[in-house]
């Protein structure tokens, strides 16, 4: 131990001798890396949650490519008196035309009543023609359009609501606007704003709009939460040391940790995801802790040894503190890396990796930059630490806590056991769920638009089924078409599946049109050649690309699109499972094969992994922390004791989640590993300090406890306040998953802190583990 202390003294003597170079380099490096931040791109798409080479995602993207499917912007036009009148239909036409000129919108991929064709039977043939031409639109003609839609199942509930008050314009975006959906969203909102004087109301939603809205939303949120977090932390620092340097130095560390972590993300071309928004706040709260402990020690030594030079003060401080802050930083890094290692989803993996990097940076800056920066300053005392060993108000609170623990160790243990019991019960009842629209607060325009469109039409959540046949034109075979039809019929009986579309709907409509519009002719004809000839007939007046979204060019592949009115995992999963079961029973022969894909399938697949990832991440974090603590303190018992408070904190959170009905979702699923990585710091400091007081200084246990509570206990209190309040700042985030994440970590950290300062000393008091060498 002595040897180690000598080495440390030598090391920090060197650091403080080269303080100018170190400080200059620290600042330059920080600025240099942070300069990459402006090049960062945002990816708020749901696809971002799966690795680009994931087979499910690859398959889905191939299907999208084959059928030209994109994430659309959906505009709903609502007229409470019905949309089938001259004025409203003129508006649909005008908007459809104007959309073509909006940058980012694919002018050929706009679908509305004004762009789609009706298929009608004439006395001796078939006509494919627009539902209406703008030049001869009258109120009378508008009524005919209403009748035509009534006659065309495919468009009912799809383009027009069943109650005829709402019609949709679906506009697809160009691929080149992949991460710029917010620009398109903004243009569309500006366009719709020009029509506020109309009787019709407008709503903008759809997958593309949600992505665009989210980019804007998290930007605004970051602008709010990050400065607020920095402010809260600074106020805590002012209370802790009442000195300028006590506020400035930890803040530089925070800047370094956040700036370098985000700068590195940008430099490596990693996208900024929705949950990345939580990273700066998390790092602010964590990075400041090292600064708090170092400055606490510094002022304590300064109070005890008023004659020390600045260099002596700094070196002595660092020699005392390098061990605990290294251990706590490494345990926190372990928490982040556990997320990275356990998660299959890139946003979480990167959250873990760059969070770990940020904490690592904070540690390096704590060990090098802080002592170097202090060398520029004169020795200073804090009014919070007086030379006559008098302790302040905060110290007194901690002192009383110590007395309470020594009096009631058994009660504390009983309470802990109760929490464990409730927690295990809560964990077993956790609800794994996710809904992208829940990324927004319930009164946001996008949420209202989404709810309206989902209630009025078949919905905006798509489950696609790719049908494959071996040979060209096999899809003309009536037996294959009947299978598709049967699958559609079955799927539409499933909850939340409101409608479906496939090439079959067009074939049935053509057959009906060519058979005097007889109701019973809305069916699949028996003759394969006849179906082929229908398509040829259609091509005589329709557009060559009309069926691109439903069938591939050689009639071998077809897409069935099932429409759901919810994007909630708990509703999507059973539909995917039941559709798959149906496919297993009725498809997948040598002549026809079907595979579920589309957004709903992708969701069901990856959200399903959330629960597993969560428990794996938490378990991994605990294990790493246990091994590391046991190794650092050279005692398995020390390791076990160290992880007890964090384990209880996580179990406590499960109870809270159950009581408050909080889902285990993307944001919240990360809480456990982070809470373990951060929360264990308190226990590490407690065990480290008690070991020092009991083992090295060989103080009697009661005296050791008294010492511990008033000095280390006080620093831990500020460390705790910084973390708890920092994470609480996330609760002010307008992104509900982040605010829930902040809330859960803040509560977990509080429980860890209380546990580390009550349960842990109580257990040590009762068990008297060997590694502490307690004699009296």
């Amino acid at each position, binding site marked *: 131990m002595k040897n180690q202390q000598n080495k440390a003294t030598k090391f920090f003597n060197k650091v403080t001798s080269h303080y100018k170079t170190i400080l200059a380099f620290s600042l330059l490096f920080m600025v240099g890396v942070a300069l990459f931040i402006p090049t960062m791109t945002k990816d708020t798409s749901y696809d971002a949650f799966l690795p680009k080479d994931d087979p499910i995602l690859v398959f889905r993207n191939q299907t999208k490519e084959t059928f030209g499917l994109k994430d659309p912007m959906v505009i709903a036009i609502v007229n409470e008196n019905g949309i089938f009148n001259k004025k409203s239909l003129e508006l649909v036409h005008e908007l459809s035309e104007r959309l*073509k000129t909006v940058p980012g919108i694919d002018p050929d991929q706009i679908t509305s009543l004004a762009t789609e064709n009706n298929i009608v039977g*004439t006395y001796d043939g078939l006509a494919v023609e627009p539902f209406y031409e703008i030049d001869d639109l009258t109120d009378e003609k508008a009524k005919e359009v209403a009748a035509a839609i009534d006659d065309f199942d495919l468009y009912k509930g799809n383009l027009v609501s069943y109650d005829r008050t709402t019609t949709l314009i679906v506009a697809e975006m160009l691929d080149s606007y992949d991460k710029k959906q917010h620009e398109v969203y903004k243009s569309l909102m500006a366009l719709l704003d020009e029509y506020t004087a109309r009787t019709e109301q407008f709503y903008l939603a759809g997958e593309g709009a949600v992505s665009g809205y989210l980019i804007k939303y998290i930007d605004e949120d970051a602008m709010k939460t990050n400065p607020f977090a920095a402010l809260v932390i600074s106020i805590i620092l002012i209370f802790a040391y009442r000195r300028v340097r006590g506020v400035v130095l930890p803040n530089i560390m925070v800047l370094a940790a956040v700036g370098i972590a985000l700068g590195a993300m940008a430099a490596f071309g990693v996208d900024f995801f929705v949950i990345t928004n939580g990273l700066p706040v998390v790092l602010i709260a964590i990075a400041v802790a090292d600064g708090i402990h170092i400055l606490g020690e510094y002022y304590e030594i300064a109070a005890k040894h008023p004659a020390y030079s600045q260099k002596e003060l700094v070196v002595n401080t660092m020699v005392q503190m390098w061990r605990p802050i290294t251990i706590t930083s490494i345990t926190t890094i372990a928490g982040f890396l556990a997320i990275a290692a356990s998660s299959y989803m890139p946003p979480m993996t990167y959250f873990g990796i760059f969070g770990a990097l940020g904490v690592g940076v904070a540690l390096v800056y704590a060990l090098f930059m802080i002592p170097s920066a202090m060398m520029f300053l004169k020795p200073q005392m804090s009014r919070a630490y007086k030379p006559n060993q008098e302790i302040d108000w905060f110290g007194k609170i901690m002192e009383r806590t110590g007395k309470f623990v020594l009096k009631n160790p058994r009660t504390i243990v009983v309470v802990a056991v109760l929490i464990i019991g409730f927690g295990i019960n809560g964990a077993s009842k956790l609800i794994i769920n996710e809904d992208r629209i829940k990324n927004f607060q319930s009164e946001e325009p996008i949420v209202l638009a989404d709810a309206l469109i989902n209630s009025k039409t078949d919905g905006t959540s798509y489950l696609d089924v790719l049908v494959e046949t071996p040979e060209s034109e096999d899809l003309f075979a009536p037996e294959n078409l009947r299978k598709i039809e049967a699958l559609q019929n079955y799927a539409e009986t499933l909850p939340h599946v409101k409608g479906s579309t496939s090439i079959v709907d067009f074939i049935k409509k053509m057959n009906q049109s060519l058979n005097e519009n007889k109701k019973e002719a809305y069916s699949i004809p028996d003759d394969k*050649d006849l179906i082929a000839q229908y398509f*040829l*007939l259609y091509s*005589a*007046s*329709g557009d060559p690309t009309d069926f691109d979204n439903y069938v591939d060019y050689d009639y071998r592949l077809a897409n069935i699109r099932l429409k759901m009115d919810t994007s909630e995992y708990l509703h999507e999963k059973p539909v995917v499972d039941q559709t798959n079961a149906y496919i297993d029973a009725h498809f997948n022969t040598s002549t026809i094969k079907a595979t579920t894909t589309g957004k709903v399938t992708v969701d069901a697949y990856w959200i399903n992994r959330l629960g597993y990832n969560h428990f794996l991440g938490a378990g991994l974090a605990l294990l790493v922390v246990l091994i590391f603590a046991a190794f650092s303190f050279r005692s398995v018992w020390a390791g076990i004791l160290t992880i007890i408070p964090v384990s209880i904190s996580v179990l406590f959170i499960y109870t809270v989640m159950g009581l408050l009905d909080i889902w285990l979702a993307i944001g919240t699923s990360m809480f456990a590993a982070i809470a373990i990585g951060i929360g264990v710091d308190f226990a590490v400091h407690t065990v480290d300090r008690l070991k020092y007081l009991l083992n090295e200084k060989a103080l009697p246990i009661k005296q050791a406890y008294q010492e511990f509570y008033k000095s280390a206990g006080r620093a831990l209190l500020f460390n705790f306040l910084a973390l708890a309040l920092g994470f609480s700042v996330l609760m002010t985030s307008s992104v509900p998953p982040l605010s829930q994440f902040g809330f859960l970590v803040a509560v977990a950290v509080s429980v860890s802190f209380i546990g580390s300062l009550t349960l842990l000393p109580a257990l040590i008091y009762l068990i008297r583990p060997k590694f502490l060498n307690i004699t009296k």
Partner: protein
Amino acid sequence: MKNYLIMGLLAIGLLSPTSSKAQTLPTGKSIADKTYAKDEGISVRRKLTMELKDKRGKIRIRETTSIRKYFGEEKRMAIYYLTPKSVKGTAFLTFDYPDASLDDDQWLYMPALRKTRRISAANRGDYFLGTDLTYEEIKLETRISRDDYTYKTIGTERIDGQQCYVLEGTPINDKIAKELGYSKVKLWVDASIWMLRKADSWDVAGNHLKTTAIKEIKKVQGIWTYHLIAVKNHKTAHETLFRISDIDYQTSLNDDAFTKEALVNGL
């Protein structure tokens, strides 16, 4: 490159249209008239293969036999599908009337239904049987419209080694523009045999829409005849190749071959 520059300058009016070269260029109207005067034979029988390719490179091949006959200025055409097997025997008949205000008549015989179905009058700008050419273009073949555009002859250029006049046409009014689906066309007309060799068109929003190349122009039985038309739609990336072979201008085609009833029996 130099040519493009000159054309570009001409197009934006930087070079005076009254320069000596421009004065010698024939007007669009006279060029259009010449394309109409070109001998196309009274009737023709030919093999027409339509090769359609979508943007993913998937190809549909439709082999047909086609007959065409002029009845004065009225043009009648019948197309009999040979492949794919599923549409074999399907036959398409169209009467193109010279008067643009008259809707053309079209029928399709569907052997699986054993019935001939009338197809609603197509707009002139509608796509012809799933190809990238419009009904209007099928009707004109290598002619250029006399009535729909205001032309400006902007120079000469060689296409496939032949001297061509380059014309820019804008539809005479918005209604025509909408009907045709174009806001502008650029045409290359052979200066000696008066056949269209190349055409570019822009949609009503001003986007570059299509490029059409008429190729392999050779004399058949004394009549200049194209053997290949390649059309590329730049917006949808869809392409069509029309291959013409076994051309015969001399078979006598009975007028009765161009009736609804004749479609049923095939050729």
